[in-house]
């Protein structure tokens, strides 16, 4: 073959050479036709089909009673433990070997006393309690608005979580997956991988003021699972909150009302806007928890649009007293 290629055109081809060359040309033509056939498409650029995930339901099995435990006290560790114990203990919520993700509010580059993020002591208390149920892993994560490294470090949450035995995980640019939230407004959105891979999710929001929707509480805390064009959610914030609360059903919510940001939220910055309540509200009804928390901020939950939406969608009850609650001090 190689020798025949070196010959000039005047050279005669013998039959064998002719057959070989013809076969080679036919194979080449067939190959080109085959590639054209296989790659033929109406789309100018080929992309791998994107996998659309769905968020699992993380809710605890069986009926949890009471659905709300409101605890007043000074020590977050005893308060959190007492609250969860009254609801049946942590083993009702977490089974050995499960992967647990804990979602505090770590949105801002603020110090613990400025009350713009969840109290690190509450994060540590929840992690400690969860460790008792012998999960396979405990991850503390959030999608921060300020630089995430600064947020986790300066809020004290990294140190608190790691000392209590959890792993802090900050999603990078490639750690978001498209998930169908199946909401009225929010359909397919990029969601932090941690929540798609978890067995159990615990929400630890805090009580704080928010200019646009009045307050930022348990349901609003689910903004922190999203990547992408999150800043557009403000255009219809109430439906967005209700959609997120419907898509993300946590195993347990532990509301941090040890101290709250009463004004200039959600970023705060001044100690004058911080008020101490020394309260923890644990529960499985985020709407009821938010409702109680709005009371602390001096707002009327019945007039808040997203609360009404969530109640209508069966996510919980605004009248928290009807949810089945206990209130005590430790």
């Amino acid at each position: 073959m190689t020798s025949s290629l070196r010959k000039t055109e005047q050279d005669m081809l013998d039959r064998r050479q002719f057959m070989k060359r013809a076969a080679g040309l036919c194979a080449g033509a067939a190959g080109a036709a085959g590639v054209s056939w296989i790659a033929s498409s109406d789309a100018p650029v080929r992309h791998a089909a994107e996998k659309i995930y769905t968020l699992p339901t993380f809710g605890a099995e069986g009926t949890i009673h009471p659905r709300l435990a409101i605890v007043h006290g000074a020590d977050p560790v005893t308060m959190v433990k007492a609250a969860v114990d009254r609801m049946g203990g942590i083993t009702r919520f977490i089974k050995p070997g499960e992967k647990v993700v804990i979602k505090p509010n770590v949105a801002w580059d603020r110090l613990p006393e400025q009350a713009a993020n969840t109290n690190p002591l509450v994060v540590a208390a929840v992690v400690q309690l969860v460790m008792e149920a012998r999960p396979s892993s405990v991850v503390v994560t959030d999608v921060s608005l300020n630089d995430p490294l600064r947020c986790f470090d300066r809020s004290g949450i990294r140190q608190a979580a790691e000392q209590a035995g959890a792993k802090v995980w900050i999603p990078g640019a490639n750690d978001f997956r498209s998930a169908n939230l199946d909401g009225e407004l929010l359909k397919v959105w990029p969601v932090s991988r941690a929540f798609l891979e978890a067995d159990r999710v615990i929400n630890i929001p805090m009580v704080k003021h928010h200019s646009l929707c009045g307050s930022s509480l348990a349901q609003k805390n689910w903004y922190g699972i999203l990547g992408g064009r999150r800043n557009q959610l403000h255009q219809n914030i109430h439906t967005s909150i209700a959609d997120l609360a419907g898509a993300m059903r946590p195993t347990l919510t532990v509301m941090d009302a040890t101290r709250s940001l009463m004004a200039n939220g959600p970023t705060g910055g001044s100690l004058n806007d911080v008020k101490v309540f020394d309260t923890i509200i644990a529960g499985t009804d985020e709407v009821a928890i938010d409702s109680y928390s709005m009371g602390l901020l001096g707002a009327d939950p019945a007039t808040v649009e997203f609360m009404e939406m969530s109640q209508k969608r069966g996510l919980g009850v605004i009248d928290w007293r009807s949810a089945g609650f206990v209130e005590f001090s430790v």
Partner: protein
Amino acid sequence: MSKDKREPVTLKNIRRIWSVFFVALFLFFFFSADFSRMKGYQVGLFLQADPLVWLAGLLTGWTVYTGMALALFIIVPTLFLGRFFCSWICPLGIMNQWISRLWPGRRRAEDYSMNEYRPLFRLKYYILAALLALAAMGSLQIGLLDPIALIHRSFIISVGPAADLGLGVIYQRPQLFLGGALIGALFIALILANRHSPRFWCRALCPLGAMLGVISLGSVYRIRRDVDKCTDCNKCLRGCQGACDPQGALRIAECHVCMNCIDDCPEDALTFGVPEERSSIHAPLDVNRRRLMETAVAAAALYPIMKSSLTGETTAQAAVIRPPGSLAEPDFLRRCIKCAMCMRACPTNVLQPALLEAGFEGLWTPVLINQIGWCESHCVMCGQVCPTGAIMPLTVQQRAGTPGKAPPMKLGTAFYDRGRCLPWAMNVECIVCEEVCPTSPKAIWFEVKEITNRDGSTRKLKMPYVDPKLCIGCGICENKCPVRDKAAIRVTSVGETRSKTNQMLLGK
């Protein structure tokens, strides 16, 4: 000495160990210079110890800024030992050396001609003269070609982000830099120049090498060739890094003191030390004095031309927003060496190497581009790593101010573009800018207005405003604005703390 009696502890091998150590140290500092890793490491050490930065900074600012006296650790030994920095310490020089040994297809026999001195190598002295003449006039341009600034800039803006692409080992999120491809391409060109001849950069272009060469002219300890023992075999040329003619009359200003020739000499004719009776003579510095003067004069003539251009210095420029703690623009340009350390330390990637926004003098100096990031209101990292004080090191307290006592550092002021703002232009609810505004009370406030929809119905909407007295110009509003391509709220430099003239409000 015959080859089978090879001694492992030779000066050459000691030099090799140090060169690996210093390159590793450079990479370690590069890796560590951010919020979560810095932990008090002196990450700007190479820049602070850079003699050219020391000298040029002295000429433009008339000070030896904190830490820069470390350059004496290079200058003083160079006076006695020669230009050892280039092959023992300089990460760019050492990388050039390693890379020039890697080219495939270069035959060993070619090394001899590759390592011969060429008149082209005078160029670096002219470059040095031009840069120092400019510095003496008051314009600091050494950063363009200073090897230490250059390698920091190249790694921070191009090599690091490219190496980390899709990995996320170095950075929390992928870094983007304005004109990063240009800086990367220049670095690659500089690496490829080793194909022309080994260490082309070091031999022909490097102004720091030229400066150290001049300093080394009076050095006592040198490579000495015993003319009796020497058989003129030229084997000393094989590994010569500086192309300094060790086989003839040594050019001390070119010699990197790499010690390769000592090991390569089969006759033991080369030693490092003081001259002896049978030592060869050494050649003087090979520059054309007239050419040297011409370059310096030409460079000096550039100064008035630059100063009569429209720059951030002559006229306030909206886009020239400098990091917190930056000196006023004329002083800033007298100190900034374009090393990009501030851009490495910046947690949000907002600091970007300017192209011509700040004038030619301001090429690759840091400016904030809020579409990429924003300035964290309590972050002072850039000032902590700045080796020259162009960005002063602030405490968080100095940066954030004390309510009622000291005002916060202000980088500029945010302005609404009401034609693009969702509430103002389109009756759409938003105020993300208000949510993220970090000051307390918030500089962005809103008024609830009753607006009329197209169909005649009315509803209430929150309309945002900026309070220019409270705005610190951090730009997080601009960054988080949902109008992505050109935000509806944008920061410009007016009102910046560092400027007395770029102000708009009476009584400020």
